[in-house]
């Protein structure tokens, strides 16, 4: 037998649930209406800014967006930051739909993405923010692979590659089977590595251990004497005791990735710029976005290195700020280019 009290409780909870749904439903109607103008108000405050900044995009750029949001939040306590990481492509989709103030990208915007944005009258200002170097890694016990040329890397990674053992790479290497670890096909790292090494984006052999999570690759290479892998430089930096860097030779001798060689472009072709794309409408209408962009360009030198990436030359940040001030829209990067410095690129005319 069930007592009276329980009956009351269960009935009351049913009523409460129904009321709650109803209230939730009403709420959503009301506040979506009031939410929208919120961002644009408070335009002339001289003290602390308020409002909200919505950022999405590449998971590679996410640590940078997070760091700046955190630091700017400390100065301007009333700004609500929402930073997601749904990938470079996913970010551009939402950006083109006008849902974001800023999107992070681990490659320049593509023509089709510019088209999509144009359809919705979304214009953007391109802001390069940091460099990321891809490192080629072997196990510390590996004593023979000091330097690999770009051609050898291509031979290893191209589709239908015949390389099965280290001996197939270079004849004086041991005839031990080569175990490969690399980026998963959904990551920007994969796009960039294949373009820079194989020559065509997304073109790679498929019989290798793939993971979107670079820590998995670190574990793989550090536990396998005859492994070879590639991933972000930051992951090498944090695991130096377990891994060994391979110098990459693009025709000018072997070069190791380091903050210096990545920044000055000598570590080619495996260093790439990372970008933030700022919605021009947000720059015009939302003072908090404008202030945030100015903040990140002025503080990039100090904050970028703490996120595991390499800062751009000072001049690049100055030019970027000029572009923001003049609201120069469009991109000056087309695909992965090598042999031209970032400052020269920034001085070029943009493609809208």
């Amino acid at each position: 037998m069930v007592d009276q009290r329980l009956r009351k409780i269960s009935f009351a909870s049913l009523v409460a649930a129904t009321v709650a749904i109803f209230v939730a439903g009403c709420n959503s109607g009301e506040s979506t209406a009031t939410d929208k103008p919120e961002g644009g108000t408070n335009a002339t405050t001289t003290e602390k800014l308020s409002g909200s900044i919505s950022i999405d995009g590449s998971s590679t750029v996410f640590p940078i967006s997070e760091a700046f949001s955190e630091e700017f939040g400390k100065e301007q306590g009333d700004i609500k930051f929402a930073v997601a990481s749904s990938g470079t492509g996913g970010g551009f989709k939402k950006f083109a739909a006008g849902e974001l103030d800023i999107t992070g990208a681990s490659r320049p915007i593509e023509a089709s993405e510019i088209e999509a944005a144009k359809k919705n009258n979304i214009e953007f200002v391109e802001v390069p923010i940091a460099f990321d170097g891809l490192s080629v890694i072997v196990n510390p016990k590996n004593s023979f692979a000091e330097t690999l040329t770009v051609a050898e890397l291509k031979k290893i990674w191209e589709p239908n590659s015949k390389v099965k053992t280290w001996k197939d790479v270079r004849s004086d290497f041991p005839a031990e089977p080569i175990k490969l670890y690399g980026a998963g096909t959904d990551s920007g790292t994969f796009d960039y590595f294949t373009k820079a090494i194989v020559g065509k984006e997304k073109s790679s052999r498929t019989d290798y251990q793939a993971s979107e999570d670079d820590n998995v690759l670190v574990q793989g290479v550090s536990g396998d004497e005859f492994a070879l892998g590639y991933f972000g430089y930051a992951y090498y930096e944090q695991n130096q005791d377990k891994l060994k860097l391979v110098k990459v030779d693009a025709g000018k001798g072997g070069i190791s990735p380091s903050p210096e060689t990545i920044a000055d472009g000598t570590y080619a072709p495996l260093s790439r710029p990372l970008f933030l794309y700022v919605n021009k409408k947000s720059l015009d209408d939302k003072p908090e976005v404008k202030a945030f962009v100015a903040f990140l360009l002025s503080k990039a030198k100090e904050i970028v290195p703490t996120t595991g990436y390499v800062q751009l030359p000072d001049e690049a940040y100055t030019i970027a700020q000029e572009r923001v001030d003049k609201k120069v829209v469009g991109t000056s990067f087309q695909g992965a280019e090598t042999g031209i410095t970032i400052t020269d690129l920034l001085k070029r005319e943009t493609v809208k």
Partner: protein
Amino acid sequence: MNFLFLRRLRTRSNKRWVKDKLFEFICQLSVLLAVAILIALLWSVFSTGIGRVSSQFLTSFPSRIPQNAGVKAAILGSLWVVGITGIVAIPIGVAAAVYLEEYKIRDSKLTDFIQINISNLAGVPSIVYGLLGLELFVRLAGLGRSILAGSLTMTLLILPMVIIVSQEALKAVPRTIREASYGLGATRWQTIRYQVLPSALPGIMTGIILSLSRAIGESAPLITIGAVTYISSIPEGVNDRFTVLPIQIFDWSSRPQKGFQDAAAGAIVVLLAILLIMNSLAIILRARARR
């Protein structure tokens, strides 16, 4: 002859006895294995993560400096999402189960069809629900990437499970109780409301708590609908943007810095603690309902 018969009987019963003991032993071993795995899991999680859990960790926002990072926004986000999911999913799920068990016309092709579909829906990968939620709630209904959109997506995800488990609980209520109720002149509503539902309540609650535990551990559908990874404010209503613990754990565990791996371990401890608290609450409530 009599002697032979007895002997045969004894050998046969010896064999049966051995089988009986063997089966018991296998069952015991299975229980031990399950418990051992659970203990090993809890031990490895708690030993690596407990050191990171502190009041600072529980009351801070995420940070680029691993030592300063915390899970405040993620805990509150998780509680909001699970809370709203429960409020929406429980009444709908239980009502659907009541309909299917108590009102359905026997051998109707339509209810059979519904039944098969619900069973199949329970097996659909969670990311698919994320895509559905993105189109339905975020875009079409215009809810944006809010707690409400996330909770409704989670509702879709756990509804089949709530319905199926509630149905089983209702099936377990003896027919005689219903018949006695009708015999006394009660209507169908009175029978369900005062006899069937209260008897089935403990079983239904078990189902609900299992479903909500699943909802609190999911990240894929919420990432799909656009839950954020870094947020500098705590949610104040169902229309605010949010993050949840599994997303925070996923992000930290993929970072290069060792400090973030520790933070991820700490966040896992917090998530497990919330789960254990939820489950024990349910067990206490269930024990009360049984009395």
